[in-house]
């Protein structure tokens, strides 16, 4: 930081050095800036622009000959019951999925934090394993487990429960996908919460024990308040992923039955498949807005942690 100022003895060489440094620095950034501009910034703005046009698959050859239709695509979206449905499905997925994921992850983190040594490492690896696996691959086995006469229903039958046809029943399909998402994502939050718990000072806990606080009391009055930033951050991180859920529905239900698992990302993909690029872009921007709001929250959280 202060390097360029210290380096030169007199004014002229210092400024020359600084100029050379600036050129070198931008040279270092060039590959990133080029890729970033072409493959991220460009499409990001392109998507925004396309959402105000009637762009379809046929316009690929002449992308600039499309008609600007203003907010027509957005009003088409908002009057499409399937899009509204997808908003609802995504909202349920996020609002139900996140608290469950957080509760399970917190319980695991608390249980693992009390112990130590190799055993904890084994549990951590085991519970984390689903996180590294391809959603497509695990969705295949989950679909197999959730068949009407699959493993889950056979297990339920042992205790006298007649399980539903999980993935074909409109009221059970989304809960099934949430269950799988919880299974796959708990590991991430568990690791983040564990790191947060390990940062809770030992002496604060000891002081609470001295004051005669029981384990539950310590959890509610000491640990959780200290963990609040970590919990919030975890919630934000995971919600960005949950807002985009797509693969689960693609492999397990194809958005059905009766659109009961049609997410906004899936709706976007479908419209893209129909060649309705303008409409798909508009749908993706609605999703982007939600994710941007959540990311903004995360940015603020990160900033408040830095200081």
């Amino acid at each position, binding site marked *: 930081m*202060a*390097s360029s100022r210290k380096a030169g003895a007199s004014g002229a060489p210092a400024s020359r050095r600084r100029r050379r*440094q*600036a050129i*070198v*620095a*931008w040279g*270092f*950034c060039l*590959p990133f800036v080029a*890729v*970033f501009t*072409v*493959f*991220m*910034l*460009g*499409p*990001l703005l*392109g*998507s925004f622009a396309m959402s105000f046009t009637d*762009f379809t698959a046929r316009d*690929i050859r002449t992308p600039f000959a499309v008609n600007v239709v203003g907010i027509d695509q957005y009003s088409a979206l908002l009057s499409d019951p399937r899009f509204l449905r997808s908003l609802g499905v995504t909202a349920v997925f996020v609002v139900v999925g996140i608290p469950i994921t957080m509760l399970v992850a917190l319980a695991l983190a608390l249980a693992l934090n009390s*112990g130590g040594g190799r055993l904890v490492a084994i*549990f951590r690896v*085991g*519970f*984390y*394993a689903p*996180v*590294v*696996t*391809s*959603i*497509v*691959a*695990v969705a*295949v*086995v*989950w*679909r*197999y*487990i959730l068949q009407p006469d699959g*493993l889950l229903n056979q297990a339920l039958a042992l205790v006298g429960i007649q399980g539903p046809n999980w993935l074909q029943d409109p009221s059970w399909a989304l809960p099934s996908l949430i269950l799988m998402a919880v299974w796959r994502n708990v590991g991430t939050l568990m690791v*983040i919460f564990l*790191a947060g718990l390990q940062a809770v000072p030992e002496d604060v806990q000891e002081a609470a024990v001295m004051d005669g606080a029981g384990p539950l009391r310590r959890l509610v009055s000491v640990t959780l308040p200290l963990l609040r930033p970590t919990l919030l951050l*975890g919630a934000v991180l995971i919600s960005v992923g949950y807002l985009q859920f*797509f*693969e689960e529905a693609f*492999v397990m239900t194809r958005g059905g039955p009766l659109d009961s698992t049609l997410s906004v990302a899936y709706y976007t993909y479908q419209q*893209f498949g129909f060649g309705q690029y303008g409409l*798909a*872009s508009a749908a*993706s921007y609605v*999703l*982007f807005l939600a*994710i*941007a709001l959540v990311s903004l929250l995360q*940015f603020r959280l990160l900033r408040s*942690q830095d200081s």
Partner: protein
Amino acid sequence: MSVTRRRPSAKVLTYAVLTVGLAAWLVPFAWMALGSVKTQGEILQRPPTWWPENPTGANFAAWFDRLGFTTYFTNSLVVAAATVLGNLVFCSMVGYALAKVDFPGKRALFVVVMVTLMVPGVVTFVPLFVMVSKLGLVNTYAALVLPFVTTPLGVFLMRQFILGIPDSLLEAARIDGAGELRIFARVVMPLCGPPLATLGILTFLSSWNNFLWPLVAAQSESRYTLPVALSLYSTGQNATDYGLLLAGSVLVITPILLLFVALQRYFIRGVATTGLK
């Protein structure tokens, strides 16, 4: 007193519950592995058998002989390797510039990186596809690799680490007359082992499991990556051939699970750093 006396039994109980929980947690993996070596007849049998009665390698053989596993595996590997390499080189270059060199536009660049940290693929894939089509790159490795060859997350990760390298080390090299390129290559990079390992693993993981963009950009079997191939078989005419599909799932997740078990420290550190720092 009561706290110390209750502790051992509470601990045993906690671990008992955790063990049962972990066993349940890993059932899908076990069921996947067991199903992958069952014959179609046994898969359809009700009630299902837990342990395979006549273990068969036919499902795996079909992937190699009939379904072109080698092609998909090669595609996944080539794409992941190129993506990892690009991220290691390019992200550390930007990370170094952002952390240790003063230059006009630096702050703006960093803000842009931070703001786009979370831009999801679903927002950009439509215009990206239009562009890639215009360039005639559909169904090429270039289309699969280039959008991910450097990422804001990687830049952020490297910058955070390089910020912590003492300026005095760089000053010493500068006084010796070393240019920025030399300082970067000879002083900074040798210290960056840990974040490069984390970045490499995170990138490999997201590339290996990446789905939406390869699904859109790879339009023939010759360029399918493993998840794309598996998803298309599992929703196509083989949708109920579970022995085959489970064998495919085993083939997709085994490399990554082995990597994870071998390098779990780095995986978990990666999550903790990107989540918390």
